[in-house]
């Protein structure tokens, strides 16, 4: 038996020599991911067909939760709010991040310093950012009254026409630095020779930007946009602390609606149905973005560089 074992041992070792690591190297990560991510994904689908108040027994309930969720106008509203925030925050963040990323990638010392300062919002938790802006935007004691401008004297978070834009602004404040960093890194990886060639050809700054920088940043743009768009399905804490979804339902986006349905109204079945909707939207968006990117992400990225 020992002989058999040792023989097996040498065979495994020989295999390792020629074939590289075995699947066991991936096993710990897979197990962890399986229990706390894959099982929950399946679980959220299963739970959407049950009724459960979070404490008592879970009972199979057919499509009751689904019918409730789909008939509820708040769900539709949450979808619309989510879509608006996704769209607006992309429109605001993408150009600013690109511009700042290109700018801070310059070699001047002060630009590096700016990049260092830009990073600071990333160190704050969303809860901290939300609390800071709540104080800052206070209609009585915030910045608005001080400025003396009537235009800035608004009830920023209490006015349902304005609040969505305020939320988009705060999201941008928090996340533009991160995307700036991504673009900065992307620009720095563009071979200098391309710019030099463009310069010799007499290309202006604008022409260089559109002919060299932008095409070279293609994958960076896809990465950053994917993170922005799929990420906007997960804005929860910021809005939860900043507005709690209000006023009324004005900023109650899908993740927040799911939380409130499940953990405040104790309707875990309906919350799970909302969770499934979130998962599906996320998958569809990621697939579409992947298609737009048109790249096999698992191949080495040195190839086309």
């Amino acid at each position, binding site marked *: 038996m020992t002989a058999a074992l040792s023989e097996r041992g040498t065979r495994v070792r020989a295999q*390792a*020599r020629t074939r*590289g*690591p*075995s*699947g066991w*190297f*991936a096993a*710990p*990560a897979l197990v*962890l991911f399986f229990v*706390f*991510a894959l*099982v*929950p994904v399946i*679980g*959220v689908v299963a739970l959407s067909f049950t009724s459960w108040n979070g404490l008592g027994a879970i009972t199979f309930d057919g499509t009751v939760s689904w019918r409730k969720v789909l008939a509820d106008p708040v769900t539709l509203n949450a979808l619309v709010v989510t879509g608006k925030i996704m769209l607006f925050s992309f429109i605001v963040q993408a150009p600013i991040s690109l511009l*700042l990323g290109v700018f801070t990638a310059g*070699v001047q010392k002060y630009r590096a310093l*700016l*990049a260092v*300062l*830009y*990073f*600071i*919002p990333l*160190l*704050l*938790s*969303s809860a*901290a950012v939300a*609390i*800071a802006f709540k*104080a800052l935007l206070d209609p009585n*004691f915030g*910045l608005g009254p001080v400025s003396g401008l009537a235009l800035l004297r608004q009830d920023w978070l209490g006015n349902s026409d304005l609040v969505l834009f305020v939320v988009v602004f705060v999201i941008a*404040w928090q996340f533009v*630095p991160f995307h700036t*960093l991504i673009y900065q*890194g992307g620009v*720095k*990886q563009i071979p200098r020779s391309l710019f030099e060639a463009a310069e010799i050809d007499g290309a202006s700054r604008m022409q260089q930007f559109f002919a060299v920088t932008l095409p070279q940043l293609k994958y960076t743009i896809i990465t950053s946009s994917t993170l922005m768009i*799929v990420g906007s*399905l*997960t804005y*929860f804490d910021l809005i939860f*602390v900043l507005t709690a979804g209000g006023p009324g339902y004005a900023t109650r986006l899908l993740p927040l609606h*799911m*939380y409130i349905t*499940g*953990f405040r109204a104790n309707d*875990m079945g309906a919350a799970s149905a909302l969770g*499934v909707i*979130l998962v599906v939207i*996320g*998958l569809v968006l990621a697939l579409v973005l992947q298609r737009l990117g048109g790249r096999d*992400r*698992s191949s*080495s990225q040195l190839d086309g*560089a």
Partner: protein
Amino acid sequence: MSTTLTTSPTTTPPPTDQPPRQRRRRQRERPNYLGGLSGWIWLVIIILPLYYVVMTSFKSQVGFFSSNPLLPALDPTLDNYALVLRSGFVTYLVNSIIVTVGAVGPALLVSFMAAYAVVRGRGRFIALTNTVFLMGLAIPLQATIVPIYLIITKMGLYDSLLALILPSAAFALPISVLILSNFMRDIPNELFESMRLDGASNWSILWHLVLPMTRPAVVTVGIYNALQVWNGFLFPLILTQSPDKRVLPLSLWAFQGEFSVNVPAILAAVVLSTLPLLLLYIFGRRQLLGGLTAGFSK
């Protein structure tokens, strides 16, 4: 191709491979007005709220209601900080440290191993692994809080720090495996071959070849995940309950309820909760920014 090859897998961050004289000439010839203007405007946008938070945190409550929010306090006071420290801040800080280290350390280790398997291994199981983590990137995992709450309660972990550590570590895996494996793919095949010929085991290769070659990526992934976990709010909100299990972001929310109109005290809590990361940032800035740009811009 050669530029990427030399910059990305080594420890030096990408920039400046250009002679200085040429740089200066470029700059003089073409000032970037649009970039410059927006750069400085954005700086103001970033700094103003931070300035306001810090200034206000030193004001007394009376001072807050009566003074101009943008002027420094007339009667600067540390009372707010004392109040926050008396209200359990240290407990929350320790909890945050435990959860962050406890989640990021193991997540880094197992995703490093998994990335190695994905890049160098073969077979159906490994292909499946790769697919699973790529899919994990696309799924907004926050959508699964209800089953996670169920699993955690069934495991008897509700209201414990472990309840925060386990799902946080699991959620960190897809992006970690992706970034680490992207970097590992750039290690030349010959290096693996020569180590194999010398009879090195997989562990030895992992430790003596892959880790040194991917150190910037490991740092990136570590920092990125640490930021996510440290600032995480949703898991603490649904998986813990008692004050002695609170982590910092949740404590800010709780302070908001506790201190209600005492805005300077709430903002002092905001400052204190950010301080540990700010200190880390000041000391590890080069590593952090270099790593993050290298990791995500590939």
